């Protein structure tokens, strides 16, 4: 029995957020704060010939215009620019030199006493360029592709031969458009300059220590001189995994002017850095008459920049999701004159699994087998990509069963175009989802004070995912305290070391550290009790005692109890603290650890116009223990909604001549609005796991979106008989094909 974990707890930071007391990176300030506004390039490739700042500097309130010609010194070696989520190659350096590498590259920062003055003056900065024609067409540049610098699972068998010989096979090419993160909070950095030259930076980031290290390195500042403090992040989805250019620019200005500076990007400028890459995928699948897979060939071509090789886990899933003796994978990158792509929610998996699960659906029709049944027949309890390691847990079959039952999959009539209601064609589609359950080393500190309250801290982030809440629950559970007696602190680079907040590994990594720190503190309390030779605890270990409402008790004889405050008094200190580091245990190496899902979708299509409505969706998730039900369900719902966006709406529209994203605002970059969202249902399937980490929880940030786009595309096929292999599936593609 738990008192907090696996319960529906409201967010502990909710009141702060809804009352506006939660401060975000662009909301911190000091009395002498000045504002920077970025000037972006209008060309995509070439050189800056001249920057004329005369008119801008005349604007009342303007303090300076920083360019590559007058910026403070920065590191020149590439190693200094690395970050915790760096891609292979050379990190982009804002205002480094006269070269233009992509359209909307920052070329100047206007700093003024007010935001209004800075923005107006930015419009007066004149930049003359020498322009070269950019290359931004993935299809046209296909011949320039090179192998992605990442290790793929080894080929198995002879996939080409097996495909040729197989009785049932499909071959198809899938395309997906570039997507932009568009978190509600725009990227922002406020650099507070103190008279001793030390910097306190409020940066929109998923890793405060990542930002701090990056700034220390490139400006040659001693580690202790840069502190990054970001208690709240208004959504990030991967956009804050790497330090973005506004952080560097704000720091440059602060160091040059010796003043506190804030730089907030505009919504338009949110399209001037990373995005999910446009991707082309070629799939060949074959099975025998019983539907058993005999060949999987998955080739991917993803977009990257001219200065970095962005790689993600896009093809690996095809080697592990199903049992298949013959597998060949290929992953190439095509450099374009655009900014480097950037991890976005379930990076790689949403794309690779979209193509794989679309092809599986095509195969099901070719084989004449129900799409769900085809997946069940190819289910594997071991991981073929890792030499058939067992999974630490894998309740995917339960996801299929419970999801299908809740959805009513058995009401599906097998033939495409066979379900109708008035003018609407109705289609059922499904797909499998998968994501890795990772754990990274992390540390946490737990402090208990004389008033009985506990404070736990770690330099992780809460990007809206519920980190504050779940960590509070874990610590409160350990101590048997009400949530109000426990505080969790995060988002400060001086706190114990934590990995980036991403990859769905925060609960697994930081949560384990929080648990261990609490247990280490409990051990100290027990040791303190044992100092007294008469103590009833004398012969007991930590596993023999429980903590409850400020007391420590012996499980076997609960009447033997001591107040924690009494223990602290005995120790002669008003508080006691413990630091712990958690690392993945070696045992994990013998297992594959992953989350799984089964997604079921009902679409209604008006065939005259090609309009698609997602009338129902059920997502059954197996992700170990779900420690915090409300933020947990919230994560999955968000993933499902984004999956709808990916499938039907989201598309960075690139002007290929200008190599410029043209719909750089959220009126014209479409993602779902409330009217697009109907009945969404989340099932958490019970999954017991003692291998993955001490909490048995796998993390759920990514899994909710994986598979959704395929399930929708598959449902559209079932409704209309039209197979649209190009995301987003806009109405024109549906009614015209």
């Amino acid at each position, binding site marked *: 029995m738990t008192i907090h974990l696996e319960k529906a707890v409201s967010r502990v930071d909710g009141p702060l957020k809804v009352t506006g007391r939660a401060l975000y990176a662009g909301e911190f300030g000091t009395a002498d704060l000045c504002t920077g506004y970025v000037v972006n390039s209008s060309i995509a490739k070439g050189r800056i010939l001249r920057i004329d700042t005369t008119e801008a500097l005349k604007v009342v309130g303007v303090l300076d215009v920083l360019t590559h010609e007058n910026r403070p010194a920065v590191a020149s070696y590439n190693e200094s620019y690395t970050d915790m989520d760096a891609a292979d190659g050379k990190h982009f350096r804002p205002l480094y030199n006269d070269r233009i590498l992509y359209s909307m590259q920052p070329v100047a920062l206007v700093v003024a006493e007010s935001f209004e003055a800075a923005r107006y003056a930015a419009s007066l900065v004149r930049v003359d360029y020498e322009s070269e024609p950019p290359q931004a067409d993935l299809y046209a540049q296909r011949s320039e592709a090179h192998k992605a610098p990442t290790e793929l699972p080894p080929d198995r068998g002879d996939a080409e031969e097996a495909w040729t010989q197989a009785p049932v096979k499909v071959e198809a090419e899938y395309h997906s458009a570039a997507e932009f993160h568009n978190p509600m909070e725009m990227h922002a950095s406020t650099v507070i300059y103190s008279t001793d030259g030390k910097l306190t930076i409020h940066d929109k980031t998923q890793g405060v220590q990542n930002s701090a290290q990056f700034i220390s390195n490139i400006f040659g500042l001693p580690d202790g001189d840069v502190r990054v403090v970001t208690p709240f992040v208004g959504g990030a989805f991967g956009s804050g995994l790497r330090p973005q250019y506004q952080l560097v620019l704000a720091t440059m200005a602060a160091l040059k002017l010796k003043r506190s500076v804030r730089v907030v990007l505009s919504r338009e400028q949110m399209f001037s850095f990373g995005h999910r890459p446009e991707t082309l995928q070629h799939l060949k699948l074959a099975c025998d008459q019983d539907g058993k897979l005999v060949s999987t060939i998955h080739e991917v071509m993803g977009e990257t920049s001219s200065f970095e090789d962005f790689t993600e886990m896009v093809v690996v899933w095809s080697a592990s999701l199903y049992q298949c003796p013959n597998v060949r994978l290929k992953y190439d990158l095509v450099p374009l004159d655009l900014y480097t792509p950037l991890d976005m929610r379930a990076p790689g998996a949403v794309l690779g699994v979209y193509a794989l699960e679309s092809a599986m659906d095509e195969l099901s029709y070719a084989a004449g087998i129900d799409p769900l049944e085809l997946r069940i027949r190819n289910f594997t309890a071991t991981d073929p990509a890792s030499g058939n390691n067992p999974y630490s847990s894998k309740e995917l079959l339960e996801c299929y069963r419970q999801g299908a039952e809740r959805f009513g999959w058995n009401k599906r009539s097998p033939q495409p175009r066979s379900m109708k209601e008035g003018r609407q064609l109705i289609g059922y589609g499904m797909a499998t989802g998968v994501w890795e359950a990772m754990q990274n080393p992390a540390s946490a500190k737990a402090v208990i004070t004389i008033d009985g309250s506990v404070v736990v801290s770690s330099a992780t982030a809460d990007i809206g995912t519920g980190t504050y809440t779940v960590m509070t629950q874990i610590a409160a559970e350990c101590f048997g305290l009400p949530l109000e007696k426990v505080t969790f602190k995060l988002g400060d680079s001086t706190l114990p070391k934590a990995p980036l907040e991403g990859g769905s590994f925060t609960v697994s990594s930081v949560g384990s550290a929080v648990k261990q720190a609490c247990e280490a503190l409990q051990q100290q309390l027990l040791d303190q009790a044992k100092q007294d030779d008469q103590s009833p605890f004398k012969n007991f270990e930590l596993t023999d005692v429980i903590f409850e409402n400020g007391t420590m008790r012996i499980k076997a004889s609960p009447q033997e109890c001591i107040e924690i405050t009494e223990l602290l008094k005995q120790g002669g200190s008003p508080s006691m603290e413990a630091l712990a580091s958690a690392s993945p245990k070696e045992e994990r190496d013998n297992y594959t650890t992953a989350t799984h899902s089964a997604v079921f979708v009902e679409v209604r299509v008006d065939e005259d116009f090609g309009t698609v409505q997602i009338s129902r969706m059920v997502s059954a998730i197996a992700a170990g223990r779900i420690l915090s039900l409300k933020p947990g369900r919230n994560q999955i719902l968000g993933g499902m909604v984004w999956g709808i966006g990916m499938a039907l709406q989201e598309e960075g529209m690139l002007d290929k*001549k200008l190599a410029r994203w043209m719909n750089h605002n959220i009126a014209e970059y479409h993602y779902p609005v409330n009217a697009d969202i109907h009945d969404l249902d989340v099932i958490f399937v019970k999954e017991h796991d003692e291998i993955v980490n001490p909490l048995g929880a796998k993390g759920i940030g990514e899994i909710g979106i994986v598979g959704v786009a395929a399930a929708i595309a598959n449902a559209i096929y079932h409704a209309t008989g039209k197979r649209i292999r190009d995301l987003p599936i806009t109405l024109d593609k549906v009614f015209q094909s």
Partner: protein
Amino acid sequence: MNRFSYSKPQQVSEALQQLSDTGRFIAGGTNLLDLMKENVARPSQLVDINALPLNKIETTQAGGLRIGALVKNSTVAYHPDVERVYPLLAHAILAGASAQLRNMASTGGNLLQRTRCYYFYDVGTPCNKREPGSGCGALEGQNRIHAILGHSEQCIAVHPSDMCVALAALEATVHVSGPSGNRSIPFADFHRLPGDTPHLDTNLAPDEIITAVELPPRGFAENFAYLKLRDRASYAFALVSVAAGLELNGTSIGAARIALGGVAHKPWRCPEVEAALIGKPATEESYRMAADALLQGAVGFEHNRFKIELARRAIVRALSEAAAGVNAQ
């Protein structure tokens, strides 16, 4: 921000007097403020017209309705006379923007809103509408949301309004005041095609102000439809929209109005096509003929050719729905 002066006159004559060559009137500001932030509009003067006495909805002697230029879009949409007599207009307004925007946006301002062409909004790109002579970025660029009718080599932008499509179908009249007095502009003549002067959206002179929009008595309340097709279910501009109104004599058509949105630099109408429907049976075949005639000469571009067939289907559906009276109360 661009420095600008600000004044808030109480009377139309005062407002006209105060407006300078580089000044702009501002009412709801839902479009102008965006354009100023994007550095697309740089007025030196804002004349705030919200205090002018132009915020009434009144019945006219002719039996129509006169909507003051400052009446908010949401007020028009939910006005009992509009709901009863001109539900087509109410439906069109409610298909546009969001509740928040409709609460701010004025009737006159809706007529004067600028295109949503990506290039018009991005000062880093060429646009003849924003900067005459700089070229049209959309012509060979991203043109999904652009025109298929009435465009020129200079400009392929579309007018983004939903409300105006209904006003065109209802044959509204735009009342304006200027230094030399008042005049009335038939709705069909209010907006312009781009031609060689894409920087001009309307035939309103720079020194004139819209005072009211007048609706004639015919409202097509029994048989109407506003059909809007877009890339998501709400808060997106029309790829294609159709305002349709019919009067039926039994099973044949007595009168027809069809206006298209999202396809041209102005709400698109062909009175000849409407006239040709009179006396025809109210059948899909008649509607298809009308659709073909309306779209005669339509030319699409790389990303928007689909609009031609989409518009054809939308016209047929809208007329069918109108004839069936599915939207009538």
